[in-house]
């Protein structure tokens, strides 16, 4: 009986581990306004260990990600992007990081958004 329980437990844990993908895909919304923002957002995301591909669309504000679930997670990616100065749906960028952005990138300012 003990042996059977052990085998079943191992199988269940095995299934848990198997559920983590090395090429997980996700899309998150990140605020930005121009091609310079695109460069900054993609760079911040891809510099996060475990992120394999990051493509941000200027029009839809969606950041398409391919990342290794075993090495990183979505919350960590949100942190990296926000730390670079760009608000995401989950995390607001720290004031200092936003202030450091180039004038034409200040996406929180309605007048800057209109110019693009």
């Amino acid at each position, binding site marked *: 009986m003990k042996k059977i329980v052990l085998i079943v437990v191992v199988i269940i844990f095995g299934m848990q581990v198997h559920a983590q993908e090395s090429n997980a895909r996700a*899309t998150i*919304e990140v605020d930005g306004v121009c091609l310079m923002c695109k460069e900054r957002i993609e760079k911040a995301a891809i510099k996060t260990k475990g992120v394999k591909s990051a493509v941000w669309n200027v029009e839809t504000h969606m950041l398409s990600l391919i990342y290794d679930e075993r090495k990183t997670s979505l919350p960590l990616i949100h942190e990296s992007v926000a730390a670079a100065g760009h608000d995401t749906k989950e995390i607001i960028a720290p004031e200092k990081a936003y202030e450091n952005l180039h004038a034409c990138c200040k996406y929180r300012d309605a007048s800057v958004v209109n110019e693009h």
Partner: protein
Amino acid sequence: MKKPIWFLLVCLCTQLVTAQKYISGIIYEVSERQTNIPLPGANVYWLNTEIGTITNTDGEFKIPYPKKYTQLIVSYVGFKTDTIQITEATEIKHWLLPESSLDAIVLQKRKQTAFRSLLQAQNVTMISSAELLKAACCNLAESFETNPSIDVNFPDALTGTRQIRMLGLTSPYTLITLENIPAVRGASQIYGLSFVPGTWVESIQISKGAGSVVNGYESIAGQINAELQKPATDENFFLNAYAGNDGRFELNNHLNFKLNEKWYTGLYLHGNLRDSKMENNDDGFLDMPLAKQLNVMNRWQYMDAKKGFVGFLNVRYLRDEKQIGQVDFNPDTDKFTANSWGGKINTQRAEASLKLGYVFPEIPYQSLGVQMSYSDHRQDAYFGFNVYDIHHKSLYTNLFFSSIIGDSRHNFKTGISISYDDYEELVIETAYNRTENSIGGFFEYSYDNLGDLNVNLGMRVDHHNRIGTFVTPRIHARYTPWEKAALKASFGRGVRTPSIFAENQQFFSSSRSISIRDSGGNFYGLDAEDAWNYGVSFLQGFRIFNREADITFDFYRTDFVNQIVVDWEDPQQVVFYNLDGTSFANSFQTEVNLSPAERVDVRISYRLFDVQTDYLSGRQQKPLTPKHRFFINAGYESRIKENGSHWKFDATYNWLSAQRFPATFTNPEAFRLSENTPHLNTVNAQITKVFSSKFEIYVGGENITNVRQNNPIVSADNPFGPYFDTTFVYGPIFGSMYYTGLRWKF
């Protein structure tokens, strides 16, 4: 006993709790042509959350379904974003409508027909099909008239073949590929470009400087790649008819069919004919050859986006006949006699090629590719009493794998290439046969820091049965110093095996004696050609007249370690020998592209060439290479009406400075030429009336100012004498030429 069971039950319960419900479905786009076009890459996410996904290549998606969320958003650029109310986990099928307001934006920002890439590490200019329509462009050799990076010249006064030049060096030093498979080489070096009809070409990419290691070791000055039309994207029916007042008629017909969701096929037909004798400069010789050509291609395209496979299979057959020489020459009665001087060049070419690509479905940055090509090219020709036959069989295989290292900033491509070439030549009375084979491996690493730097490092190692083992490194870098600027640099080595007779056929149409200074090498007694090319390029985008413009500065230098020197400084002979000393080509180019008014495009370019070689007689400038070239092209497109009708106007002006004639002072005075040619001005223009997206008519003129080289043929009245020579060509032979044509498609 109880404890383990509880433990087991707890584990099972947590499994049930974490086992999520999913909602899946397919997103389609609404289109007039078909009802069920899946939309890959569409965003599907729950409103006000970051739980989302993107549809795969089949438009399918699967997203976790936490019961509390009810609004599912589906969006994609160019389409109206939709909100779907979800109450239960059913299969979703949803159609997105295109956003009509996006059309206005597309019209205002016209796409440039030819543009240089700001982002690529290599210095690439892309010529689109719209640019190819600006000139007569009957075949690939004539498709560079509106682009200053490639020069076109006539190597002889008889065959009417155009030869291209890049960075001051003739076409053998440029790798010419068709869909990235080396194509115009060996036996087809001189006429190969004229064997690709202009309408078959979808786009052309011109890369300056040593190309990528992926395509082989042969490129020295650069690479020209022509993409052909693809059955899935080309028109179902296309017809082009052309007629020129130089007696040339052409007909092109494309027929494309969709067999099912995955298979497409296309039949491409081309025929041309010139059967009227044109002689306008009173030298007794035909200004343009009598010609006829039949060219057929069948393409098969396979696309299985779900599994990630893409494939192309091409089969081509060509038959081309040219007759050159004196007007009264009759091939049936005068061949190999002294009645009249003439020649015939008959070519038959059959070719099959296969390209397969596989993109790993979940990993779009990882792919496998296979390229295979076989060609059999046979030319039987005679020029007066000079016979030149060549039979060239060629097999090429390239396998490569591409992926990332860690993340998409670090890309690599690696693979193996195998090639086999068999040559059988008869040169006047001597037979030259040889077989070449090579096997090589390559690795190219590419770094893109998603911002200001992009670097390509490539290395190739090849073993060739007649050259031995050698490496060809290639490095390209692009740096963006500030907005809209690109600073590019390249450095690399190219090695090529010479086909000295196939590449210099113009000398058969002369009384020169042809000889080789044998050095014991493996190619006609000579060695392979070997050169290093390096250069820098700076591109700056700016705004003028409230529109986008750009200016480019290029400088490239090619240094030959070995070159097969073609020495025709003695008018009585042409001698081939290995370079002993220095041979280089310096090329400087500046180009400005701007739009001074709405729908008007102007391109201006100036180039400086300094090409010098150490001949046995000393260092000389390369003959018949102009030092300075000035180019200006202007185009205007009228406003497009509701029914699609509009006008297109295009004009090109070229100025070439004086060129050095090869020495002729040992000839008797009557057969001597001056030291330099005069400078030249030529003008081309074309007007197109587009009636609708289905039909257009065009009219144009080449060399409108009727500039002609006087007496291009030396000793034309005594072609069997010792001074006959048709190779001193520096400008147009045929004066102004007018043409008209129509294009019909649906």
